[in-house]
């Protein structure tokens, strides 16, 4: 019996290559695990068994013929349900797309499969990736595998929970305000948001186009590097995907971290930071210092304005992006309407959940005549200030180290009736999205209640290799007794 708990990308691929197991057997073990345990966790929305078995068979035949498998050959991976997969239902966690079957593949998904990965299925998430707890899924919430009374974080809650409970070796998530890093932190896995433009957004269902990022959630830093290396790089189908060469992130992991300068910003250690989280993160910073990193205080003075800026920019873009759900070409249509305008309204009323409507309303208000300058334009200007803060800091340091979240995972239901309290769960993650810089969350200890705590490492634009290297060095040193 394969031990799914210790299975990583390299060990899975090697086992398939050396015929100590088969890709088909790995797929079956994962589906068994999902069948037994996902009833409680709720990570998956759709399984694509036929597609998975076809790909597994392809990899097994390659291995049998002695052909060298590609980098992710035979590795079972799952996809957040905001990325299209051809002929596989893709819902974005919304009733409005409850029966949507895309006619094409998202570039990131296609690149994973081209590298041999076996896509097991589509993972639950907050509706249109809007949420920090996964309670906004139109289907069912996800529970934190470490403590089922608690949320897994959001919006990539299914992705983090699937990896944390060994129901996938790795997963793709998306991050608009922290939606990869925050659930990674809550579930005790690694989550990487690449630089804006590093990974093509083609086939990603849009939430806020200037902030949306696709990235990996994985059991360790090396696996995150392997997935990023596979999905990164220019794609002519996304005009915002950058023409910047993709380094070998895995090879870069081996470089020493001694002498790297890491910044610590007091604004990320202020009021609202849980004492146990603070202690763990400070200990991790000490650990990096012992590895030879130079710890330097930096200031990001506009940090307290990040949440209002983010929730104006993101909702404004969302209100425009979600205008497409009109019940005409695809998706849900209200049955009760007699006229076209009735149909639009009722379709959207019945199709969208409460948080999505709230954000559409907020964004529409911020863009409406008379309020555009006061809200949207103002927020765009403050976005410039927040980005300048990072530019200043990165003149002095190679990376910035912070807590990923102010607290460990909270209880289901704890914040559902207070949208503002929910928004504040993103307080340490939204600035990186606004500035477009990369960030990674890695586990750095537990609370007394055994809940995972996340360490966030932020880097310069396109400097994923540096933050992966730091994360890897910390991970290795923390694993030693």
């Amino acid at each position, binding site marked *: 019996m394969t031990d799914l708990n210790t299975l990583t990308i390299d060990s899975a691929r090697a086992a398939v290559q050396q015929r100590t197991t088969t890709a088909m057997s790995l797929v079956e073990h994962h589906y068994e695990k999902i069948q037994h345990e996902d009833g409680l966790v709720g990570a998956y929305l759709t399984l694509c068994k036929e597609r998975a078995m076809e790909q597994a068979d392809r990899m097994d035949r390659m291995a049998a013929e002695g052909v060298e498998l590609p980098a992710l050959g035979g590795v079972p991976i799952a996809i957040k349900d905001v990325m299209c997969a051809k002929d596989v239902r893709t819902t974005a966690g919304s009733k409005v797309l409850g029966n949507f079957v895309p006619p094409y593949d998202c570039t990131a998904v296609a690149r994973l499969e081209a590298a041999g990965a076996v896509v097991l299925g589509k993972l639950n998430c907050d509706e249109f990736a809007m949420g920090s707890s996964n309670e906004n899924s139109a289907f069912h919430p996800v529970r934190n595998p470490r403590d089922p009374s608690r949320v897994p974080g959001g919006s990539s809650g299914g992705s983090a929970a699937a990896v944390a409970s060994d129901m996938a070796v790795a997963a793709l998530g998306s991050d608009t305000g922290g939606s990869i890093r925050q659930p990674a932190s809550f579930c005790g896995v690694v989550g990487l948001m690449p630089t804006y433009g590093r990974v093509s957004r083609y086939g990603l269902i849009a939430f806020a186009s200037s902030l949306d990022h696709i990235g990996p959630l994985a059991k360790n830093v090396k696996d995150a590097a392997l997935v990023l290396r596979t999905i990164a790089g220019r794609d002519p189908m996304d005009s915002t995907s950058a023409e910047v060469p993709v380094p070998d992130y895995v090879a870069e992991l081996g470089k020493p971290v001694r002498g790297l300068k890491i910044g610590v910003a007091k604004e990320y250690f202020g009021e609202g930071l849980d004492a146990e989280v603070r202690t763990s993160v400070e200990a991790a910073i000490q650990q990096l210092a012992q590895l030879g990193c130079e710890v330097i205080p930096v200031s990001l003075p506009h940090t307290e304005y990040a949440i209002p800026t983010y929730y104006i920019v993101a909702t404004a873009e969302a209100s425009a992006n979600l205008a497409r759900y009109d019940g005409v070409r695809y998706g849900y249509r209200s049955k009760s309407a007699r006229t076209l305008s009735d149909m639009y309204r009722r379709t959207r009323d019945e199709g969208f959940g409460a948080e999505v409507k709230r954000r559409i*309303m907020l964004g529409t208000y911020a863009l409406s005549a008379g309020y555009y300058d006061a809200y949207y334009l103002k927020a765009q200007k*403050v976005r410039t200030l927040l980005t300048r803060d990072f530019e200043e800091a990165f003149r002095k340091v190679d990376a910035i180290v912070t807590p990923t979240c102010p607290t460990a995972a909270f209880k289901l239901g704890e914040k559902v009736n207070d949208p*503002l309290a929910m928004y504040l769960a993103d307080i340490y993650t939204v600035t990186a999205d606004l500035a477009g810089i990369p960030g990674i969350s890695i586990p750095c200890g537990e609370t007394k209640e055994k809940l995972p705590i996340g360490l966030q490492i932020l880097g310069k634009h396109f400097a994923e290799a540096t933050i992966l290297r730091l994360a890897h060095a910390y991970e290795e040193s923390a694993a030693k007794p």
Partner: protein
Amino acid sequence: MKVSEADVQYVADLANLELTEDERARMLRDLNSILSYMDRLNELNTENVLPMAQVSDRYGVDESKQGSERFDYASRQDVLEGLRKSLPHETALANAPEVDEHFFKVPKVIER
């Protein structure tokens, strides 16, 4: 109160939402609470600050170029099926709630 009941109605109209009476009441409360939090942005003087709509025009681009020239790499020949084939007709219609042989069907636009 920054947002009135009439504002909620107006914005819902703009967004093509109807909202039930309960939803409107809840929206009134939530929008006021969230917007008053957002007002803290007014503490900042942004008179000489340029707005930032996106990041892709300033990072990972050739900085010796200006304006749209920075995106020359992203432009392509305007040719039919240049990047991919168009969807077959039936595939394009497959996800629609209501179709006839050729078209998407919608309720009447104008009542006679």
